[in-house]
């Protein structure tokens, strides 16, 4: 099964019909295991029980950027290879990415209140995630501004790729500007500085959230394909000559 074979929406639909239930089951099991493990994880000696927000916050924050990456690849698919499902993938991913980004912001804010003593701080990491959220919303607005999906797809693809160049620039520029958020501790040179008791639940949650994204994304792509079919059928119906009453 290659990407070109999946270009046929019917084949994609029949494949996802078979795969989606299993994917959903695995996601649910992993989420349950991850939540159970994070509930059992010890309290931090400084942060107490609030450290458990990390198990939700960090996977959301990872996915907020991962989804933009997925959309960038899909945009390349739209512009370069003209893959018919690429714009469906890009469109379906945008609201999900916005939701993950929003959750990362909300959980981070709730975590920040007891730890930093404030819900919001104009710190580098927070600000760049907020800008990422605004860019997701702008992209969704662009999708919704145009009626013709293929036209909207190409415009959104260009904006997504420009955003993909711009997001690292924003991140570094804001990094320079001000900073409070801790630096990366899981993925860095010389191994993770996180204790195993926290690291394992966190990784399980990260995998579970990634699977959750894939499940939601495939389901949203199916919905989008079906929505386009409904639209095409409606236009066909509307363009039929009407038998005038005698």
């Amino acid at each position: 099964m290659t990407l070109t074979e999946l270009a046929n929406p019917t084949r994609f639909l029949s494949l996802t019909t078979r795969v989606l239930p299993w994917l959903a089951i695995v996601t649910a099991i992993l989420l349950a295991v991850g939540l159970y493990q994070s509930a059992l994880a010890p309290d931090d000696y400084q942060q107490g029980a609030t450290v458990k927000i990390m198990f939700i916050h960090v996977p959301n924050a990872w996915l907020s950027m991962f989804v933009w990456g997925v959309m960038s690849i899909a945009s390349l698919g739209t512009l370069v290879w003209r893959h018919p499902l690429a714009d469906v993938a890009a469109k379906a991913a945008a609201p999900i990415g916005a939701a993950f980004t929003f959750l990362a912001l909300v959980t981070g804010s709730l975590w920040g209140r007891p730890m930093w003593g404030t819900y919001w701080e104009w710190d580098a990491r927070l600000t760049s995630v907020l800008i990422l959220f605004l860019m997701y919303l702008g992209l969704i607005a662009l999708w919704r501004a145009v009626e013709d999906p293929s036209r909207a797809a190409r415009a959104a693809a260009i904006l997504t790729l420009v955003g993909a160049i711009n997001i690292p620039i924003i991140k570094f520029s804001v990094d320079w500007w001000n900073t409070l958020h801790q630096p990366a501790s899981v993925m860095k040179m010389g191994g993770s500085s996180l204790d195993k008791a926290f690291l394992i639940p966190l990784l399980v949650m990260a995998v579970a959230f990634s699977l959750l994204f894939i499940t939601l994304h495939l389901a949203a792509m199916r919905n989008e394909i079906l929505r386009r079919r409904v639209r095409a059928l409606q236009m066909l119906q509307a363009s039929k000559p009407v038998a005038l009453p005698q």
Partner: protein
Amino acid sequence: MTALAALIRRDIRIALRVGGGALIGVLFFLTVVVLMPFALGPDLALLARLGPAILWIGALLASLLTLDRLFTADHDDGSLDLILMSRTPLELACAAKALAHWIAAGLPLIVATPVLGLLLNLDGPSTLAVALTLLAGTPALTFTGMIGAALAVTLQRGGLLLAVLVLPLSIPVLIFGVAASNAAIDGPLSFGTPFSILCALSLASLVIGPFAAAASLRHGLD
């Protein structure tokens, strides 16, 4: 080359003559800056401290306001289709249009900055520093904004959508523009570092902007 020069000359001429509206940007800039003391109160020390930020926000909004005209007028009268079909590469034509737009709409903002700096209680060297950062930074605003303008013209939706798409892209320019101005006025940091990054942002958008705008025009206008 002559085609590009002709395009630049034509765009500047249209922008500066009656109905062009390039100078309305300066008027808008002036109005935004005059609004600030009404909101913040006429505290001269406070205005002097916020001055660079106010001038940068004003210039950002003014350049955003005039961006709408970059492609729409040409799209309405059909000359954009001629530019698309001509043998001049579309990327170069886009770059030429953006350059003309910057000369007609961006440079007047910089020329107006000393007068507005006077209103905000900035002294001579500070005003000069802000004007210098604007000179280095506004090309980045025009060339990244051009991407939004091209998207908006192909979708036939201007106004708010354009602003929502373009403003997040201009955040780095704003950060380094204000940082460089503040460093020149009283900051402990050196002026050179943020200023060179500002120049780098302008040069990078000079490369990326025309390609993205041309791609969006090519894909969008069929």
